[in-house]
Every structure is written in C-alpha cells, then in structure tokens.
C-alpha cells in the first residue's frame, strides 16, 4: 500500500492558532527538569500554596512560616506547587486497518493530522514531544524532545508513514511503558481493532508507570453503520483472507459485534484510568482536539 500522502503543509495555520489558545495540560503530575506550565510532582517555588509541613532540622529557615509560629508556637514550613515541563509521547497505530478510506478520507490521514497538530502545540508551549509508530512492531520511534527542530523530524516520520501489516499494538505499548523513564503524557491514536482483554494489560502497564494516557479511537462512519446494499468481497487490509458476505444478511450481527466490542473497550479504558475518545471521521480533527484540550483544562 502506498503512503498516505500526508504532508506538513496540510496543517492549517488557522486551526493551529485557534487550538494554541488552549494549552495542552497533563492530568497528572509531571517530573520535568525544566520549568513549565505543568504541575510537578516535586514542591517548588511557584506562587500557588500547596500545604504546611512541620519543620525538620535541615529545612531552609527562610521557608518557616513565622506567622504560624506566632499563632501556634510551633514551627511550620510553607510549601508551594512546582511547575515543570511536559513529556508527551504520541503513539500512532499504522497497521493496515488504519488505511481504510471512507468518504471522509482515510483514518491514517486523520491520525496524521491529529498527531501533527498535537506535536506542534506541545513544542510551541515548550514541552517535549516524541512519536512512536506501531504496526507489526515498533516501526519508528522518536524520543520526546522540546527542541523546535525536533518538530521537523516528527513531521518527516509522519510523512513517511505507510499503513500496513497487522495490529500489534499490545507489545508496542508494553515496550513503550518500559522505555519511558519519566512520567509522560501518552496519546495513543488507533482504531483499536484488538481484543480489549489483550489491550487491558498494556494500558494498565502504562498507568502503572504513572503516565497520563489518552486513547483516541478512530472509526469511519461506514465501519459503524455498515450500510452496504449488496454482497461483497471484503478484503482484509491487514492481510487476512478475504471474506464473502452479504451485508444485508449479517448487518444485525455486525452491529451487535461492534457494540459489544465498543462497550468492552470503553469499560476497559475506564477501569484502566485511560482517557478515551471515540472519534468518527465525519467530525473534523480540530473539533475533536479542541474538545480534548478544553476538557483537560476544565478538570
């Protein structure tokens, strides 16, 4: 299969500008080396009060709250929140099924647009961004960096993407969970056509490593509605055997299977503490991202 023909020029400045107004924030504490807009797991010197703590020898005397001493005749140290930078790891499923193309374009193009935009937004606000492409294995991986020049490398990776092979998302996410040494924001974009019970393990692994995990599931409306009128030969985009089927005949069972899968997937993400977004391709990516960003900022 050919590449998805996505180029960085498809990023729309207007959209980027609109989305930049809403910062990309993590839902969890980050452990960055640099100061940033994200809350750090460590106490720092920001203006935002965190808590009082009893003085222990060795504490900086400048942090002792004398007013509290005057009221209680006890020594308390005043602690403040620390802000740090974000490490964002964008995981893109590049298996064959992502190459499905409906009337709204292919899923991989949609995903490329999303990943490209998120990368830009993260770099722009000074966060480190990395990318990992998963198909039958870890196809490409760029570690998170905050250098603006790194954005170009990410775009190059995206432009070279070619959706093929079967979905091996589970081992790839396990591998990522092991390889990311610091807390990061992990955004997985995929159709998740994998057994949800298999997915549970890898997402719990990521969460165990205290990563802030978000899953975007991309589905074409045609895959949801399955509104085909004549018997067809369905060619598996991931290389499996072709299947002859009469959509009219099996539509009910198809919908049943899809809804069952979706429910189990949603339940799995909920239980694993993963933020889950199911996106249909008839919704524009900027709407989906805006909702995602705003939702994060409101929490």
């Amino acid at each position, binding site marked *: 299969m050919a590449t998805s023909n996505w180029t960085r020029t498809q990023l729309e400045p207007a959209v980027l500008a609109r989305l930049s107004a809403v910062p990309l924030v993590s839902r969890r504490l980050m452990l960055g080396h640099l100061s940033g807009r994200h809350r750090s797991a460590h106490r720092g010197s920001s203006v935002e009060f965190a808590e009082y703590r009893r003085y222990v020898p060795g504490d900086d005397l400048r942090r002792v709250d004398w007013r509290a001493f005057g009221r209680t005749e006890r020594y308390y140290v005043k602690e403040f929140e620390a802000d740090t930078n974000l490490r964002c790891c964008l995981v893109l499923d590049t298996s*064959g*099924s*992502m*190459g*499905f*193309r409906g009337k709204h374009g292919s*899923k991989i193009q949609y995903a490329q647009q999303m990943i490209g935009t998120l990368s830009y937004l993260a770099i722009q606000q000074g966060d480190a961004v990395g990318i990992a492409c998963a198909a039958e294995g870890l196809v490409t991986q760029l570690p998170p960096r905050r250098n603006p020049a790194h954005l170009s490398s990410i775009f190059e990776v995206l432009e070279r993407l070619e959706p093929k092979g079967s979905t091996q998302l589970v081992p790839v996410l396990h591998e990522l969970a092991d390889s990311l040494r610091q807390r990061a924001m992990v955004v997985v974009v995929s*159709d998740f*056509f994998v057994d949800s019970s298999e997915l549970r393990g890898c997402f719990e692994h990521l969460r165990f490593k205290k990563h802030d995990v978000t899953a975007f599931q991309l*589905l*074409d409306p045609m*895959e949801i509605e*399955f509104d*085909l009128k*004549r*018997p*067809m*030969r*369905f*060619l*598996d*985009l*991931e290389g*499996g055997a*072709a*299947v*002859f*089927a*009469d959509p*009219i*005949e*099996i*539509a*009910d*069972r*198809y919908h*049943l*299977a*899809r809804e069952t*899968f979706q429910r189990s997937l949603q339940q799995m993400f909920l239980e694993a503490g993963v933020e889950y977004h199911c996106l249909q391709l008839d919704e524009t990516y900027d709407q989906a991202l805006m909702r995602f960003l705003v939702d994060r900022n409101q929490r």
Partner: protein
Amino acid sequence: MSFLYPLFLAALPLIALPIVIHLVNQRRYQTMPWGAMLFLLAANRLSRGLARIRRWLILAMRVIAVTGIVIVLTRPLSSGWLGAAAGGRVDNTIILLDRSPSMLQRGISGDLTKFEAAKLQLVRTLQVLPKSRCVLVDNVSGNPLELAEPEDLLTIPSASPLSSQADLPTLMASAYQYLKAQQNARNDIWICSDLRRQDWSPDSGRWTAVREQFAQLPPGTRIHLLAFPSQDPSDARVRVTKVAQTDEDGQTQLLLSAVVERNSATAPVQKIPLQFEVNGARTTLDVESAGARTELQSHKIPIESTQRNGWGRVAIPHDNNVANDEYYFTFSEPSPPYAVVCAEDSAVGEPLRLAAEIRPETNSKSRVDLVAPEALASIAWEQVGLLIWQGSFPQGKALETIQLFVDDGGSVIFFPPHSDTPSAAFGLEWQGWQTAPKGAVVETWRSDADLLARTQSGAALPVGTLRIDRFCQLTGESTELARLSGAKPLLVRVPTAKGAVYACSTTPDPQDSSLASDGVVFYVMLQRALDEGSRRLASARQIDAGTPWPASTQTWRRLAGESAAISTEYPHHTGVYGTGDRMVAVNRSQREDDTETVKDEQLAGLFRGLDFVRVDERSGQATSLVQEIWRIFLVAMLVSLFVEAVLCLPRLSSLRGTAA
C-alpha cells in the same frame, strides 16, 4: 428410468450452469478493502452455519430446477421394465399373446381378467412409447398381423381369448421369421402370458432353435415378458369324462360322468350346484365337493326316446375364471361303421370287403366301399372308420389325405402290392416278396392288446395256425404285433399320435396265405381295426380346442358356445358345432387344467443370452406398464424454483432496517 427422447440427456451438463454462475458471481462481487474485519468476522462467524446452508440450498434448488427442465424434455418413463424404451424408437413391436383359457382368470382387483389386463396394459404402454410397426402374431395361424394402431389389439378377433392352448415356441419362431424378413435392427417383442407349462413347453427342443435364431438377429431385439403367474386357489373347473346314451325300461337316458376340480387340496367341503343343460333343458344337482377332485359318476338325465343325437352343457357357478366353468358335450346313437377298401387286385379286395362288411352283431352290417386310389379325394373321410389299402404305399396327394385321416383318429391297414417295386410311407417300406417253401408260421404275436389280442372270453386267436406262403419284406420303425419264423414281421403297427396305422406283410390271396381260408384271425383283425377307427365315426364327438378338424370349418355352424368366435377359429373356441347331422363339442384340453407354471430359472434359461426382461403383474389393473413421469419433474422444478425464491427473499429485519 428410461426416456422417450434420450437425446435431450446430452443437455445434462447444463446442470452445472447454476454452479458456474455461482462461481462467476463470486468473482464478480465488488471487492472492498475493509478494516473492521474484527466485527465482520464475528458477524460472519455467527451466521456462517445457517447462511452456508441457505446458500447451498439455493444452489441446490437451482440445480434441481435445471435438472427438472432437462428431464422434462427427455420425457422420462417410470416402470420396472428397465430399458423398455431406453433406446428410444424401435422399428418393430411384435406382440405374442397367450390366448389360452387360463388367461381368463381375474386379477386381484377382480375387474379384469389377466388377458384383458395384459392387452390394456400393452396398448397403453405402446401408446406411450414412440410409434413403431405393431405386429400381432396370431395364435391360430401363426401368421404376423400388422396393426394400424395399438388400440386395434382391443378389438380384432385375432386378439380375443381362445379355448386352445398357446404354443409359445411356435409363436417365437413366427416372430423370428417376421423379424428376419424385416431386417430391422431395433425390435421389441412383448409376450403376455400366465406362464402355464403346457403353453410354454419349456422342455421342448424348439427353444434351443429359437434361442439360436434370435441370437443371430442384429443386436437391438429386446424381449419383454409380462407375466401373470398368480393363481387363484379357489378356482374350480368342471369336465365331462363320459357320455353314454342308454335305454332302460323304455326310457332313454343320458349317463353323464363329470369331474369337478379345485386348485386347493385343502379347500373346505362345499356344495357346488352342477347345472346340466341338454338340448336347452336345464337341471341342477348339488354336489358336495371335498378336496381337490370330486367325481360324479353316471348321472342320469332322461331324454326323449326319439332323440337320436344332441348336445349339452355342464356348468358350475362362475368364479374367477369363467373359461373352465363349463363343458360342452354331444351324444348320439352310434352309426354303422364305414370302411373303404382300396385294392389294386380285386382278388384281394373282395375278401377284404367281405371281412370288413360283416359285423359281429346280428343283423348288422358295415358300410364298405371299394374305391380306386384316384377316387380317394371324393370320399367323405369324416365318416370313414377304416381304410384298407392293398398295393404300393400311397404317394403325393393320396398320402396327404390318408395322413389327415389318421391324424383325425382313423385306422389304416396296408397290405403289400403284388409287384416287387419298393415303396415307402409312414416310415415303412415294402422291399419285395419272399416265398416260404414250406410255408411260414407265426412264431410270436401280441395277445395282450391290439388287433391280435385275446377275445373277451380270454381265448387266444388261432394266429399260430396261419400258414404264410409268400410275404413281402417290410422294414421301418414299427411295433411288431405278429412275427414269422426267421424274425420276419407279419403284422406291425406304426406309432402315431392319433389313429392307427397297421401293415400286414401278406395278403388274403390263397397263393400268399391262409388268411382268407382260416378267416377268424383275418376277420377279427379287420373288425377290431374298424372298431378302433369307428370310435371317431360317431356323428357326435368331443374334441380338444385347437385340434385341427378334418373338413373345412366353413361348412360348420355354431350350435352353442362363444358367439364371438369366427368360423375359421371354431376349432379353438369352446362350443358345439354342427354340419349336417354331425355335431362336435369343442372344449379346453385336459392339459389346460394343469396349473403348473414354468419355473423362474427354467424361464430364464429359455431366454439365456437374449435381451430379456420379465415383469410379474399381479394387480390385474389396466394401468400402463410404462408411464410418463415428466409431470413429477415439472412439479419438482416448480417447487425448487419456489423454494429458491423464498430463500432468496431478504430477511424481514433487513427490510425493516432499510425502510427505517
């Protein structure tokens, strides 16, 4: 199953058409690259079993529909007669009907006799099969008779039942002769018979010849036997065994002896009303019948004392076979014996005439005519009891006439000619005279039976006192009744089926023998021969159906019996026939009452090596042996199309979904 138009079977590969279309359609399916195979496979897996069955059912229905169309076009026939029309059209269809009385037994259904059922089944079968030249081999004449239409079989007299036996080997031989003359490749022979042994003569050597002849015909001649071997165990039959006319106390009476036979020896005791009809007057006598055979001895029926002859009938109530439920008989006063002397030497002829003329009974004389050999044709042979022939053996027309006379039961005594010219007839040959210088004597003779038998008182005839001076050498196959010294035959009898043929190797001429001078032996010999021949002379006679009559049947008229019989077939139909003051009662033969049938393996052996199919018919129905069953296939095709249409209908849920 066979087909009227088997050529259409060539279209059978069209059955594969739906499968080919199915495969092509699969190729023509729009291909869609699909990502969500997870759902698709799950949905397909759930529906795979039923959907696959449904698909196969649709395909099967389409195949059945195409098969149905093809088979309907071939016009299939259903029958146990495998191969009855497998080859399609035939050139000649030969019909051999067993018209014997046993075929008149009714079948299980009781509506039709075997004969009627056979004809109807045959006609309906031939109507179904492609048209061909239809030929019936006549039982009576053995001649093939072409039928314009198979339906003619139901109306023509040559296909009506007879009272005589059938002769299947002869019919087969006639069929062979016809087919040989036609020289067609495809022939069907249809035999309808109840397999009675007397009709088939399975032990006859003629079957070997028939088999060999049919084996020489081109391949394509098939023999179909429609057999009706079933027998009715309750069938009863009657037969008159003796008729005599007596005067007792001034009352003239008929003494009738009859036999009632039943198929089952274990049949319960039953009263059978025997009906006697004599010259139109009917009387009934209840006879208690037990077991298989019941005899009625000398039943007296008074008749008018002035009545010199007449006919009668004995009948039992009709059962499943009416053909053996009645028996005709005739009676008459015995007429004076009639002898014909044909001698080349009047010196010999005169003593012969005298010896034949004087009857042992007082005041009674025989009628004796002295005729020349060339006048034989003018003699009323049906009245003659004895022919005394002196001279060379007759030849040509004369021999044929005498042969017919003998076949009709007459007696002939041959005396040698005076010349030494050899002559031969009836398997005997005169070979020249020999002289016995001292006079030969009769060395041995048969005194237990025949012409030289002892008298009623037990006294032997004085055969030993005869002196033979000259005798003519006689050779040939015969039974010696008297032998001269030196193992020379004096009196012989030629074995014949009917009648009697004797030859005496000397003459009553005093130069040849003392037959005339010691006249007792000579007289007794001639009178006994005359008596034997005169048994047929009575003006009333009982003969078996099928026995040839001596005179042309055109002079006979029917007095009683089957009205459907045509005059040429009178000898084959039960009844009473008369010409002048003579009457003949024709009845089924004794052998016809024999219920033994040809065994299966024996029957198979008769047709060994030939294309032979046998079907046993027991129902007695008139349904065709072969039936067109294309309607069944048409219905099957329509049903399959309907089922296919139903299976192809989209499911209601899908329709609802589409509508929504």
